[in-house]
């Protein structure tokens, strides 16, 4: 579905991604692991078109994404839930969701309203707070809102950049339940996650990004067996 080949992205002289190759399969949950500064967010922003790579290609169902504006990438069917959620704090929940339906402005009013209703069904907490400013929501609720906003664009592939960052353990469980639900309903998901234990329970395939390169690629089973990864990411509780 998504083919990343030899992507190099730099900030000025510093190469954050130094030739990344990976692929995301349709109907799967794919997880990108890696330490801080490995380039995970850079990769997500590059796929979303916000950053321009200096080399390499990104194919999405045969369409080349490199060079497209972020808006066109979303139009192709990829939506990003950015790191730290980035909801619009001074707009209410409903307006936040409507902003996510930008690409469907003309002539689809009824359908957008229906999608809005579906989001509220999926996230009842958001319905309760529809008229409340997004900045007043809890971290978990903001994360739900960011996910719902991305879904308003009806993506086939959802990119999620550290959805569990800074959330209470119960909320992390909730976010992963949502990820499973979305996957069951047919959305492919490409996830950046530091919480390897939670990721192990949902993801079908893992990539490990270190210093701008993919250094491991495998299934959850292979990941759990890899000794280096066990020590670095799963700690002593790997099999517990």
């Amino acid at each position, binding site marked *: 579905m998504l083919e990343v080949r030899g992507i190099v992205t730099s900030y000025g002289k510093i190469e954050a991604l130094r030739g990344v190759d990976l692929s995301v399969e349709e109907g799967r949950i794919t997880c990108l692991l890696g330490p801080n500064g490995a380039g995970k967010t850079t990769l997500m922003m590059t796929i979303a078109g*916000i950053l321009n790579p200096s080399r390499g290609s990104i194919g999405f169902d045969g369409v080349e994404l490199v060079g497209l504006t972020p808006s066109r990438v979303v139009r192709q069917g990829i939506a990003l839930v950015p790191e730290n959620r*980035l909801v619009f704090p001074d*707009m209410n929940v409903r307006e936040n969701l409507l902003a996510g339906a*930008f690409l469907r402005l003309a002539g689809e009013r009824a359908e957008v309203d229906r999608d809005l209703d579906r989001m509220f069904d999926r996230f009842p907490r958001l319905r309760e707070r529809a008229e409340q400013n997004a900045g007043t929501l809890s971290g978990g609720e903001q994360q739900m809102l960011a996910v719902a906003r991305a879904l308003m664009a009806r993506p086939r592939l959802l990119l999620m950049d550290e959805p569990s960052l800074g959330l209470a353990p119960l909320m992390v469980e909730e976010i992963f339940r949502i990820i499973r639900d979305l996957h069951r309903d047919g959305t492919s998901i490409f996830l950046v996650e530091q919480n390897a234990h939670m990721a192990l329970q949902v993801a079908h395939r893992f990539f490990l990004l270190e210093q701008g390169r993919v250094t491991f690629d495998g299934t959850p089973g292979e990941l759990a067996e890899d000794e280096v990864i066990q020590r670095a990411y799963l700690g002593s509780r790997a099999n517990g």
Partner: protein
Amino acid sequence: MDFYLGLLQIIGVHTILGLSAYVVMLTGQLSLAQAGFFAIGAYVAGMLTVLAGFHIVPAMLVGALLAGVMAFIVGFPALRVKGLMLVIATLAFGEFVRLFFFNFDYQISKGGISVGPLGGEGFRQIRFFPENGWTSLDVMLFVWAVVITVMAALWWMDRSRAGAVLRAVGEDELAAQSAGINLTVVKVAAMTAGGFIAGLGGAIYAHYTTHIEHLNFGVILATFAIAYPILGGLSNVFGTLVAVIFIQGVLVEGLRFMGDWRNLLFGALIVLAMNVRPRGLFDERVTALLKGLFTGRGHART
């Protein structure tokens, strides 16, 4: 009486000018070009009624459309830069327009008198209102009909999805982009709408003062244009109106008895107002309070 009608006309036109900056500001951009668009509307509409014998309404619409087209053209290069750089770029454009009219002559002879813009001497005798027997009251009502139309249009826009999209860009460009919002389209659209509205304001201004010159459209006017929505807050269109009444009605006119001290106090009061109400005179709290009063239920959110 005429003094107060005149004051209401000024407040009306400045509200339109302030709203033109408000639209652009919703997308997080600060434009000092609004006085330039205002000047284009003023000169074009004035020339149409004086030289071509147009009625004020079509002349106003043509002036506003041209101002909107200019804003559209300026929007593309200008909005590639942000923040202070954008302020400088739009300031440069405003000065460019002003200096264009400083050098612009286009006079024809009408009944033995030369009429039309004459460079530094300005554009005299824009006498559509007196020639057609409009009283000050008629003019004032006309101004406010336009103000109310513009406010209603913006109010409706703000409540629709278009408003959500504009504000989304203003709040967080990165998040807006990842939600699929095309920043260029949104910013240029806001700029164009702002140019159109400023053009409307300029067109009316030219006709009630009957004499315009390049000095009317300088940096001071551009600063006023952005001061209104900044002081009034971006919660809704009424903030801008309140700010115009505060500045033009209370500060400029109300402090006249202070003589030379007025300008000094003027600045001090604006600084004070910004400190007491950092999110604008008409912020969310006032909105919520009024909502509570009108619906008769609940207390304001604090």
